[in-house]
């Protein structure tokens, strides 16, 4: 894992913790940025890198758990919770909502770094997936409307003849469209296209079987 392609955000109201964690991470060559409250973190401009969020549960403005709820929608870095208290219900709630780990102070550097690694891996993969999806959406956006009509039919397994009949065009025309779709979407095969359609959540509305729709 290279040391420059991710960043660790730290949110804790205790300056001792912030300084100590930055020191620790930098000593491992990990880039880190620290914030004193949830508000400060949310407001700050963050670099577009795989990231991990080390989040203290006991914060001055809102609790870490609350912040987790609030940023859940967005696409946020995976969270590693740290806490001075360590009660079970909080930890359960945090994990259920997708936190990577829940560490009680004082924690060992090994545990922390392992959690950060897992988080970064997770975030890298998530970011890649997001990028991929974004690309697919872009490509889909470039399809003509006719091509968009064709796409669901061919991924639902209809034969060219059926698909053409469905659309009221000739089979030849259909084949032209089909080739275009595959090319624009960058699909190497039909199977690829099917996977892309699933990613894009395009509904499969037709079926090969007679009377099926």
């Amino acid at each position, binding site marked *: 894992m290279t040391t420059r392609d991710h960043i660790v955000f730290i949110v804790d109201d*205790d300056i*001792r*913790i912030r*300084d*100590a*964690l930055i*020191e*620790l991470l*930098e*000593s*491992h060559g990990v880039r880190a940025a620290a914030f004193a409250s949830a508000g400060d973190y949310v407001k700050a401009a963050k670099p577009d890198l795989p990231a991990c969020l080390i989040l203290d549960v*006991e914060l001055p403005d809102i609790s870490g758990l609350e912040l987790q709820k609030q940023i859940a929608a967005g696409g946020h870095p995976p969270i590693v919770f*740290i806490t*001075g*208290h*360590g009660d079970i219900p909080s930890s359960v709630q945090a994990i259920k909502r997708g936190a990577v780990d829940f560490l*009680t*102070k*004082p*924690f*060992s*550097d090994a545990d*922390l770094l392992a959690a950060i690694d897992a988080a970064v891996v997770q975030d890298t993969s998530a970011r890649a997936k997001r990028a991929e999806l974004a690309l697919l959406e872009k490509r889909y956006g470039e399809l003509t409307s006719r091509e968009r009509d064709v796409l669901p039919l061919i991924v639902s397994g209809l034969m060219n003849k059926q698909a053409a009949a469905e659309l009221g065009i000739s089979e030849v025309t259909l084949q032209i469209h089909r080739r275009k779709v595959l090319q624009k979407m960058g699909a190497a095969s039909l199977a690829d296209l099917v996977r892309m359609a699933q990613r894009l959540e395009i509904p499969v509305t037709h079926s090969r079987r007679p009377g099926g729709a």
Partner: protein
Amino acid sequence: MDAPHTPDEFDAHAARAIRIIESMPGFAWSAGPDGRFIYVSPNTLTYLGTAQIELDPLADVDEFGWRRVVHPDDYDRVADRWRHCLRTGEAYNAEHRLRRADGVYRWFRNFGTPSRDTEGRITEWYGTTIDIEELKQTEEALSERERQLRELIETLPAMIWSTTPSGEPIFFSRQFRDFLGFDVADKDIPGVPRLTGVLNAHIHPDDLDAVNALFARCLVTGNPYALKHRQRGFDGVYKWVETRANAMRNRKGLITQWNGICFDIEDLMRVQSALQANERELSQLVDMVPSHVWRLTPDGEPTFFNKRMVDYLGFDVADTIKPGISRLVVLTKSAIHPDDAEAFADTLDNSLRTGEPFAIKYRLRRTDGVYRWMSSRAEPLRDSSGRIAQWYGLCHDIDDQVSIAEELRLAQERLARSTQAASLAELSASIAHEVNQPLAAIVANSHACHRWLTADPPNIGRAQKTVERVIRDTNSAAEVVGRIRALFKQSAETRHLTAIDSVIDEARELLANEAMRRRIRIEMDIGEYPPLAALDPVQIQQVLVNLMRNGMEAFGDDDSDRTLQVRVRRTIDAIQTEIRDRGRGIEFPDRIFEPFFTTKENGMGMGLAICRSIIESHGGRLWVEKNEPRGAAFIFTLPVGTKAAV
């Protein structure tokens, strides 16, 4: 009988006349114009026991000849009369006593009629003497009786009066005369009826009309007269009297007279009006007192509510009278809060039976439907034989106090509970937090330091910075520990030698209202002179309140044996306090002292854990056992004397 004509007829006539005269019961006589006897009938002479010759006058001594036979006291009067009649020719009629042959005087009435000749000259007197002794005796007896009666009336210490049937006063008794200072006729004004004069002289002007009107009516109807009015005597001072009069009737039923009596009721009136004023004052007092005053019969039936109570309830005793139900039941159902009704009925019942005064608090419904807390006390009133005659009660509105007290108590409880709860959980949380923060920083800095030192090349500068941070954070951690230690030290200093029973009493006080609400009786068995133990009264009180409340909560609504026992026993080196309930018992005896373990919906589960921790910090033990026949017994020990654990 025909008038005689012939001499024989004359003789026969004369003889007959003589026989008639001589057979008459009276004495017959005749006398000449000079008043001396000519003829005296034989029965007269027999009666007198004299011969006719003895009735001849004796010059100077015996003018008419009957001095010896007429009573000496009567002689002069009779002789004067006889002389008068002899002279005037008037018919003679005199009463006098005559001496009988045996010397006994008897009364006689003597009649004499003159006989005149053709010229009107008196030729002879003819007379009859009749024995009226018995008549006289009767007359005298009557007269005596009349005198006695009159004297009776006169001497009676009462003002007696009489009037004619038309209301004219005819008699005042001596008492009345003395009182008025005048007699019947003394106030006569010509042209004015006597009654008017008399009444105006002594009846109070404001009462005159009433007196006149009523008397006039009675004179007409014949009904008895009775009236209270004022009258004044000779001293001019008006006093209250009561006058009563009845009509006196003859054998035919006609009124012949009105007889009346006045008796002085001045004192009576004064006493009555004083009594009335007193009664009014008392009544006002009873009604104005800012409490409800009420009264019950010995059976508990309400007979009186004072005005305040009536105003509060919106109904009076009379409204509690319903057929077939006791008034007390009606009152209880209408006005006592349903949750308090049973306790109220039980307490009242007990008092009615035993005669013990009772005191109870309950909620009473006001006329607008709002229930307010009342404190009621009642005591029996006993008669001279010691039997209860009435129950008198006072009912005082304590709602404001109760609300405030209740709020205060709840606030105190909450505070105590939260402080208590907070003390351990928060304490541990704050310890954790406060210590973990610097620790976490120390750990991270230490590792960073190690990294800097083992880097290639080692980064001494940064390593130094981290070490400085480590030192700083270590100090801050040490400080935290020091503060916590100080906290504990302080609590150990609040322990002092205390008698456990005073702490138990206070705990009971705090729980009194709750116990009453749950209808649970707290039974204390302290024993004599429980020894002193070194304890923090606030903490131990919290333990007791917690255990006792748990005990009370163990009783279900249906449990009938609602007694919570608190017992203190002495063992060799400790005081053992037991809180025993007869409730549903402990389901998880092994787990109940665990922190966060609770079977209650809203429980945090810290109570028993905290209790145990407090007791153990005092050097004692807290555990639970089964109670017989059912329920639980929470038992804790405290070391006796000055042995106090830190």
